[in-house]
């Protein structure tokens, strides 16, 4: 079955620390990969996405992610976090190739950045 896993459920960092959040999926076919952020009380916002090409993608707010096909991973990184990055981060995968619209979300990682 297709699934998306995020192993870090809660992460606490101090400002200026580096961030890496893991995302793995189980599927050997064509996928589109996304990271969304949800600030407290707000809606989901797209941080970045990968469709094809350069496996290192850059998103908004200084975030980037690297697609490693051999590891079925799409980890999110930020060199130096800020207090305003406190939020919940969701990895999502669109398991495509056959026109499916099924986007599956990981369980989310709750990030708290201490000022």
């Amino acid at each position, binding site marked *: 079955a297709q699934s998306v896993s995020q192993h870090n459920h809660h992460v606490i960092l101090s400002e200026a620390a580096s961030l890496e959040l893991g995302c793995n999926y189980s599927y050997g076919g064509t996928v*589109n990969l*996304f990271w*969304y952020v949800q600030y407290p009380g*707000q*809606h*989901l*916002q*797209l941080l970045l*996405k990968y*469709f*094809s*090409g350069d496996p290192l993608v850059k998103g908004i707010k200084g975030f980037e992610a690297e697609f490693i096909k051999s590891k079925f991973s799409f980890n999110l990184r930020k060199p130096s976090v800020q207090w305003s990055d406190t939020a*919940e981060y*969701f990895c*999502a995968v*669109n398991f*495509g*190739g*056959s*026109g*499916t*619209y*099924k*986007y*599956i*979300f*990981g*369980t*989310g990682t*709750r990030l708290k950045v201490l000022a």
Partner: protein
Amino acid sequence: DTEVTQTPKHLVMGMTNKKSLKCEQHMGHRAMYWYKQKAKKPPELMFVYSYEKLSINESVPSRFSPECPNSSLLNLHLHALQPEDSALYLCASSQGAWTGSSGNTIYFGEGSWLTVV
């Protein structure tokens, strides 16, 4: 700002009420989605409409009834809900047909907070 608009933002309804959630997008997208999100949980797919036809129903109880009047509008009709149905209901849209290397980004609205009493 999101280009997917949802109304109402907040709704409180009794278990015998009938109400509707509405969603609108003007991005020319041909796929529209309803997701349900409980607190501290990821969004769960409920329904997908593709080109105004129901494409996916994730075994959602019949007390939730989706409707897609046209390519820009998506409704979710609610009837005889249970308190456990209280959640954030998210509408989303994407371009439509799988576009291969171009991908298919899904854009979310701000959601409708539903409380069933």
